């Protein structure tokens, strides 16, 4: 007898497959199916919140158990994100790609990516997860390359294929080793899995290193950075799709395999590579004048931050970041045509920040930190509050120094910022605690390492722009931006 939770989980997965099959024949129907899939997944989230984790398997046979799905607070939440962004991409592209004769091809390939990523998010068996992961990568490459006539798409597809295949080989090897040692692995039963993993012994370090490489390749970190920069050659909906589990797939992978995340050298390596990629991408972004290029660099920086959060075991924060950033960047790409100013538009003067402005900004930052605090339950929470406060300071400093002193002050904007910070704190607490409730915290590096990351992120641009170090400077970063001719 199927319970309600199981039914809605299966329904969401079946509905997610439909658009991939229907897109070329019945476009409206496939868009409707995509939204219904997202709705079913959201229903699963509610059902899981009430009823607890469930696993749907196909019988107890050793072979059929390769196929099974798992609805926990984490998997259902991420699945809802993936299917939601996927449905949005479908709806958006119906009109956006109206004049594109290949739009049906885009729609069905995009739907395949979504369905496979939904499987990555919910698969119960380790092997199923691995296959879906590889499939999603292949499907994404085919989405990027669906318009071969657009300059740059072919080199992007080539670069992504190369990066993904390195990651895929690593991931599959890790899974093969683990399965060889332990037999079929089910992710749904985390406590049993943790006990099992102790039996891995010396394989443990190798497996986590391989998984880390897979995560780095999907998140375009380190040497795998190039494909993400090139992906802006593809039509906008493909760039939105990227954020439905593809580029943030590395975070999802680490979260799903959280038992691996105990202190290991691989995690330290991940922290260093992701942290440095993040800082460097932020610097590159500051010299990019093209909107989509700067969004892509920003994504890389954000993914570095998310992986760093995973590496230090700040899982609730990483989940919040994965979900929040996906929606943020999807929106930014969809709105990327709105960056041209209109004649007569009011451009506030870029004033010099004075002591008065700094004091106001400091006060706003403190208030914002206070507003975000009630949700804090653990060390990583405090770190996130620190980040929130710095954001509030930066925004209010920019806002107040734009604002001429001759005008009556507008208190509602700073107050709005503080209120937003409070809302954010509550949301992050709700989402993080709910989606991360089955994950074991601690044991890994301390979340306070993120402050070291922050210090490096703060210092590096200052060094680059100081001019004291002749080896560094704007030129070096301009040179690092991708330069591909059409």
């Amino acid at each position, binding site marked *: 007898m199927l319970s309600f939770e199981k039914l809605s989980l299966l329904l969401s997965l079946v509905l997610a497959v439909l658009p991939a099959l229907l897109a070329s024949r019945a476009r409206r129907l496939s868009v409707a199916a995509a939204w219904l899939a997202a709705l079913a997944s959201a229903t699963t989230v509610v059902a899981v919140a009430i009823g607890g984790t469930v696993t749907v398997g196909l019988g107890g046979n050793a072979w059929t158990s390769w196929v099974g799905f798992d609805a926990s607070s984490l998997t259902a939440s991420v699945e809802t994100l993936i299917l939601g962004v996927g449905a949005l991409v479908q709806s*958006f592209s119906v009109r956006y790609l109206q004049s594109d004769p290949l739009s049906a091809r885009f729609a069905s390939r995009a739907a395949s990516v979504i369905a496979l990523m939904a499987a990555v998010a919910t698969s119960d068996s380790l092997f199923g997860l691995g296959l879906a992961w590889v499939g999603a990568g292949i499907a994404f490459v085919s989405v990027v390359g669906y318009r071969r006539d657009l300059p740059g798409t072919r080199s992007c597809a080539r670069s992504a294929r190369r990066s993904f295949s390195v990651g895929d080989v690593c991931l599959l090897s890790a899974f093969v080793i683990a399965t060889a040692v332990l037999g079929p692995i089910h992710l749904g039963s985390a406590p049993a899995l943790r006990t099992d993993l102790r039996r891995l012994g010396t394989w443990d370090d190798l497996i986590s290193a391989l998984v880390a490489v897979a995560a780095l390749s999907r998140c375009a970190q380190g040497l795998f950075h190039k494909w993400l920069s090139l992906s*802006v050659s593809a039509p906008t909906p493909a760039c939105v799709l990227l954020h439905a589990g593809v580029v943030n797939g590395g975070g999802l992978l680490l979260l799903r395999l959280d038992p691996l995340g105990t202190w290991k050298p691989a995690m330290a390596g991940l922290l260093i590579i992701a942290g440095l990629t993040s800082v460097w991408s932020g610097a590159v972004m500051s010299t990019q004048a093209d909107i989509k290029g700067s969004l892509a660099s920003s994504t890389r920086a954000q993914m570095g931050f998310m992986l760093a959060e995973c590496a230090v075991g700040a899982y609730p924060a990483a989940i919040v970041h994965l979900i929040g950033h*996906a929606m943020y960047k999807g929106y930014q790409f969809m709105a990327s045509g709105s960056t041209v*100013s209109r004649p007569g*538009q009011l451009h506030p003067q870029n004033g010099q920040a004075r002591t008065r402005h700094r004091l106001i900004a400091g006060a706003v930052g403190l208030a914002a930190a206070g507003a975000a605090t009630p949700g804090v339950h653990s060390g990583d929470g405090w770190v996130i509050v620190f980040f929130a406060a710095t954001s509030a300071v930066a925004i209010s400093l*920019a*806002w107040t120094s734009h604002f001429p002193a001759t005008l009556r002050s507008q208190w509602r904007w700073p107050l709005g910022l503080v209120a937003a910070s409070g809302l*954010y704190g509550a949301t992050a607490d709700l989402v993080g605690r709910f989606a991360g409730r089955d994950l074991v915290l601690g044991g890994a590096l301390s979340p306070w390492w993120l402050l070291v990351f922050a210090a490096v992120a703060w210092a590096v641009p200052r060094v680059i722009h100081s001019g004291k170090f002749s080896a560094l*400077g704007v030129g070096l970063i301009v040179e690092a931006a991708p330069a591909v001719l059409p």
Partner: protein
Amino acid sequence: MNAPSRAAALRAVVDLASDPLPILWPLETAIATNPLWDLRSRGFAGAVSVADRLLGATGYPSDDTLRLAYCEGRITDTDLHSALREYRLSAREEFGVREGPEHFDAAVFNAHHLDGRIDAEVARWCAAFLGGKLPRSSDGFYNAWRHSVSTTLWARRPKAKQLLSRLPPTAAEAAVFCLTLLGIDEHQWRSELTAHLARMPGWAAHAKWRSRWAAPGTPGPALELVDYLAVRLAYATLLGSETSGGSEASGGTARSQTAQSGWRENAPAGLDTIPALAGMDASEKQEIWLRSYEIHYRARLLRALTRQTSSPSQRPPAAQFVFCIDVRSEGLRRHIEASGDYETFGFAGFFGFPVRVHPWNGGSAVDLCPVLLRPTLEVDETPAGGRPASGSALLAAHTGFAGVGPAIEAGRQGEISPYVLAEASGFALGPVAALRTLAPQAFAALRSWVSTKLAPEPRTELNLQGASAPSDDSQALYAETALKTMGLTAGFAPVVVICGHAATTENNPFASALDCGACGAVGGARSARLAADVLNRPRVRQLLRERHIDIPVGTVFVAAEHDTTTDRVRVLDAGSVPPSHARLVENLQEAMSQAGRRLTDERSGDLPGADPSGATSHVSRRSVDWAQLQPEWGLARNASLIVAPRALSAGVDLQRRAFLHSYDPASDEGGLFLETILTGPMVVAHWINAAYYFSAVSPDVYGAGDKAAHNVVAGAGVWQGVGGDLRLGLPRQAVFDGERLYHEPMRLLTVIEAPPTLIDAVIARNAVVEQLVGGAWVHLVCRHEGTWLLKAGDGSWIDLPDGEPPAYPDSAGPVDATLEGLQTSRIGGGQP
């Protein structure tokens, strides 16, 4: 020669060298231009062949387009006969066409031998500079580059280091220095510089705009031609010294590859089977096919104009309307005229007032005039009733609101701030994205509600009195010129509506390309208000009376705006209409709304993905949809400019393809007003026409590419993808419907009602008009005493009875026989 004079000589050569390059306005005011404008003295065919060789840009409709047109009956055999005949007349001698010295062959050769790495390097420095990302950008591009480039890995190589240390401090000197090192003599400078500019026409076109067209003091980093060339030459020198010997073009661009294919003879296979065309070269054949395509339209237009019988009513009209000449006004005028006793006029949408308006809230100044002019009037916009005490609170609200975007951007660009900012705003933006996609109108309503709450727009007025306003005399002078040029000097109705136009689109980098071109790619509401306000001033009317234009006391001018995306027409400042006229204006508002709805029904048949049953609600949704890449067709299919009293075209369905300029030859003895029209509005119409033409026939070079993959670069233009050159012209979605060309690429047909002698006199007085007409950039047809006359290429006038071209004498029928081969290879489903 000493260094300073050589630098001066170089500056002179730079301007000449940039002649074959297009001009690219920034996206904020995306002006439609003729990309071959500075080659106009060579005539259409000559200019097109230069661009073909230099940039790989085809200048004629493709073989497929023409074949399809023939199969569908869009080109008939009669058209071909006429085209041949007219072409032979023009082939004898083209007046107004001069060949310049040939330096292009060398330039073409050089362009193919330049190193592709130069392009890659220069493109990213240009982008970073325009984005304001480089320190010392106020010193110009060359110096900003020189300052920052030293930290690249590139510049650490010994040869580069050595060269960089020897580079002179100004761009012109540096260019001379590098040219000398490259071993290029002064007489080769021009072709070498043209070659460098032609490698990336987009960046060159932006620099050309900045150096040759932008008003002095235009904000933003100034990427000048000399700076751009100096940096390019520096890279050429560096690369040349590294790969000395065997330096081959590497990493050539896709466009230069097309350029190489354009290098070959480009014969339209299948279209050259007509015996009469035998022995002609490819471009002559293409010219004849294009002319046939144009003649078909011309014949139908002139026939329709000849047949129209509706004579203007003798009764005084209930109201008069002045619209912009924009082709989109034609439909609205037709429907308004059909709905009552209304008289309409056409005039360039700045209504004759070249003005710079300073917005009330301190926003950037807006120039409202065609870019061929510079604003000569300055007007302040103020909240209605001066600046009351509440004005400053309002200003604070606006400043605070306007500061939010840049503040969030600052957070996005910060070191530690972007991380939480992104995830926090994501939880708000995710649902907003769903709303914008699923219910665009609900989102638009919500957004306007919020912005009205936070920063309400006050009622504003244009300040026309006082020290800072233009003098009464100058106001009256511009008003007089405008009224006389459009032929509205007597018989004023109680209400005269002055109607500008603008487009409402969402998430559209090319939004300004759909606004009023005659207002400098800005919405026309301010111009309409200014004209109405000036003409309502008693002092101005008094001065006009002294100049024999008597506007009755009972006449009120009312400003309105036509939204071309939704066809909503709304009266601006309805509150300030005197009570005596309020009722009448209300009726007019109703009539305009009715006409707009009918126009929407008419238009929706052509809009891709439109729902014809609910056209009005469809277009409202379309105009606010952020996923809509084709909000309207804009000026696509524009084809003609009619300079005549409305009586010539009233009642004819011109299918929104004609620019209509009112003109009364009876009151223009010296041809002064005609001269104004031919040197102003005709040139603007020609620019728009040519921009659409070239974006349609050569979309890879002169078109901006697919909007779905556009990447806006610093507001200057778009990249297709991750980098490289800026794209020129109009996006693919503006001229193509799916894979099929929607725009019909034709050169502008100007129809003038005036004596041919008067037109000849105007042509003789104006070199630009002579070049456009003589060089076949624009076709000219004259209506005089009931006959149609065509200006032939040799300068003579040919009689066109009833608008139809006369039968070609020696064409018994070979054409029909030989074209059968074409029909078998027909594409699409049209009937032959």
